[in-house]
């Protein structure tokens, strides 16, 4: 019973139109209302996303505004060169992938655990209070967070160096020059900021679980842990899957604010904080050619897209219904 998803049942009750050649006209006639419902969004997507997509050609051109985007000269793959020129190419790719993979995992484990735990708190008022507070860091922009981190870790007045370390009898450390700590600092900051966001999504999913399952489990004497592993997680698996798939699609894109603002442009830290987006931005500040940033963007999109396709294919093999498409 728990295994049969609504989707499977829907197909049982509403069989697809079978025909040798599925007549699109038949489909339109039967489902015309659906098209009407989707129309506003389609119009918006066309204007906001699909028409501007012609701009992808900028990645292959030397843009001259006098000639306009369509009239400018093609230059093949020249705009992609700067990304691969130095050993930095490896560093930024490695950093981007490692950090993002870490974030995907962290953004799954902690918010899920929090959502489950919050659901168990007896007092609804207390649970709501915690939820609200947990959400607050999300309101802060990365610039402000960078000030906060600076207030914590700055060499002269930072809390660590001026209060905590002396109290423990330890030496001051020049944090912004110390590479080793940042692979921990950045994920901590990122998790802290987005915790509320992901927790809400998982909480909404958990609320949708039918109470009957838990009733049955309690009658059977199942422990909380068993309930979690046999009921909660399997039933919200579609949500977990899609959240993960969507993040995989963005695995080559980094949160710019996090990697640019928080480390305060400290050059010494670049080997551990430089990601594709910051690399591209710094180039752009100097060269000012949108062809370069467009090329980088295209590369990120293609990689992300390929990875999602692959992941989606894997998911389809495991459980067809959970796949993205």
């Amino acid at each position, binding site marked *: 019973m728990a295994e049969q998803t609504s989707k499977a049942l829907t197909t049982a009750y509403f069989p697809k139109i079978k025909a040798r050649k599925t007549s699109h006209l038949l489909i339109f006639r039967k489902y015309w209302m659906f098209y009407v*419902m989707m129309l506003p969004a389609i119009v918006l997507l066309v204007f906001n996303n699909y028409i501007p997509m012609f701009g992808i050609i900028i990645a292959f051109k030397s*843009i*001259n505004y006098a000639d306009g985007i369509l009239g400018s000269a093609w230059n093949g793959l020249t705009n992609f060169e700067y990304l691969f020129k130095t050993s930095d190419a490896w560093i930024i790719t490695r950093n981007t992938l490692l950090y993002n993979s870490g974030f995907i995992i962290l953004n799954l484990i902690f918010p899920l655990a929090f959502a489950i735990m919050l659901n168990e708190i007896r007092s609804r008022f207390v649970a709501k209070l915690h939820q609200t507070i947990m959400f607050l860091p999300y309101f802060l922009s990365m610039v402000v967070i960078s000030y906060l981190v600076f207030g914590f870790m700055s060499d002269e007045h930072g809390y660590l160096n001026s209060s905590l370390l002396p109290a423990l009898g330890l030496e001051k450390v020049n944090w912004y020059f110390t590479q080793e700590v940042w692979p921990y600092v950045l994920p901590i900051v990122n998790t802290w900021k987005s915790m509320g966001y992901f927790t809400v999504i998982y909480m909404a999913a958990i609320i949708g679980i039918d109470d009957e399952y838990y009733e049955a489990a309690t009658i059977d004497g199942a422990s909380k842990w068993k309930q979690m592993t046999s009921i909660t997680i399997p039933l919200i698996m579609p949500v977990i899957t899609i959240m993960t798939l969507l993040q995989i699609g963005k695995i080559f894109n980094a949160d710019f604010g996090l990697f640019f603002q928080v480390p305060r442009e400290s050059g010494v830290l*670049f080997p551990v904080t430089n990601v594709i987006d910051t690399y591209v931005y710094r180039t752009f500040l*100097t*060269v000012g050619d949108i062809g370069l940033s467009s090329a980088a963007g295209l590369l990120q999109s293609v990689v992300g897209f390929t990875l999602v396709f692959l992941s989606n294919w894997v998911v389809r093999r495991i459980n067809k219904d959970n796949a993205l498409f």
Partner: protein
Amino acid sequence: MKQVKQKTFMLLLLMLTIVLVVSACSGNNSKTNNNPEPTKDSAATEEEPPASDLKPYKISLVYPGTPQTDEKKVEEALNKLLTEKINATIDLMPIDWGAWDDKINLMIASHEEVDIIFTAQWNGHANNVSKGAFLELGDLIDQYGKGIVDSLDPAFLEGAKINGKNYGIPTNKELAAAGGIVYRKDVTDELGIDMSNVKTPQDLDAVYAVVKAKRPDLTPLYTTAGVFNSHFFANYDFLGDSTIPGAILKDEAGTTVTSIEKIERYKQYLNLTRDYFKKGYINADAATTQVSSGDAWKAGTVFSTVEPMKPGKDAEIASASGLTGKLAQIIMTEKTVATSETAGSMLGISSTSKDPARAMMLINLLHTDKEINNLLNFGIEGEHYTRNGEIITATDSTANYNPGSAWMFGNQFLNYVWDTEDPDKWAKFKEFNQNAKVSPALGFVFNSEPVKAEVGALANVIRQYQRALETGSVDVDKILAEYEAKLKDAGVDKVIAEKQKQFDEFLASK
């Protein structure tokens, strides 16, 4: 019943979509129409027509700065004068610094119709010219810019050329540059330090030692960037964009382009700065702090900073930070003139302008008409300031119009002088501009298009190492070697070779 309800809902939905699409397509009805009858541009062979023959035209002036409260009032006042003289009105379009680069890029990319745009060599002027954003101004200057030619030192126009043509009119201001320090005179008086023998950075060692010992609350030398290796202090001429490697020395005659890491002077200053850093003279967070020196001065924690020098720099900093009368300055380098000064502040005419002739007339007025110039810069006399001869005093309403952008508009020698500044300011400037050493590279701007990829890769390397090295925050020998290796890896030699090649062509054509 259900059918009716369903149909109604569907109808509502369709209407919603239609409303969205229609309102999107019909757009903004309240957009002001700038130019009812734009004058055709045929500047080449026309004589300058008298004002009465000109059709009314609204000139837009795009510049970086904070929008001012009384902008409309000032525009009205300007319009009266401009209608009289060139039958035009003005539309001031200030754009915040933080949004400037983005907005200008979009403005140019979308062919927005504007007339005059602020531009500077350090703000992508060369780039924008190569992308066709600005008009070539030679003929326009001849026709309508007599006042400009008469008042501007020829070095300005010469030094702002790209491939032998002018695409921007430089502001008439201080021409020469020099480097030096601004320091707390009241502190040196208090501690009995004699500053009259301090002529070089090395001389500062003894001074800082005393300050550090006796006044631990002050940072002897506050910096957030290059210190002695700042290009204005060490006199590096980067032949265009100072973020692209390859420079020559402004105050010497050599014309070999080198990577500055190889220049003796650079290494000397690096070691000196490192020495000062280790001795605790420089703020420990120099490489990461975002507290500007202005804020630091205001907080009263600074003893001295390295600054680009001009007459009255100390008074300027003093009045901005509430330390009036307590600061003094020492100029430590030779005065030089290079493209970075001559092309550091210009007004260009957009290639989308519908009446470039009129735009040029306005620029000409900014260089010659005292009333218009000061109106734009300081506001309405009697309201935003009171005047006594050349000296002006602030009023309660000054804050409502105080763009502080006088260095962008026309001829600064026409400006009034605030009562907090040196009354002889402009006379001293004129003097300062004399007898400066002219850089061999004046008038040359490097075109980075052929080595775009290398420059992009280098940008990241430079950002990684430069600030930490030049503030003295890291060990010089080890890091410098690393830095040079990475630069090589990113293709710095190719960039330098290209720069040299273009520079040699320029020298040959002179």
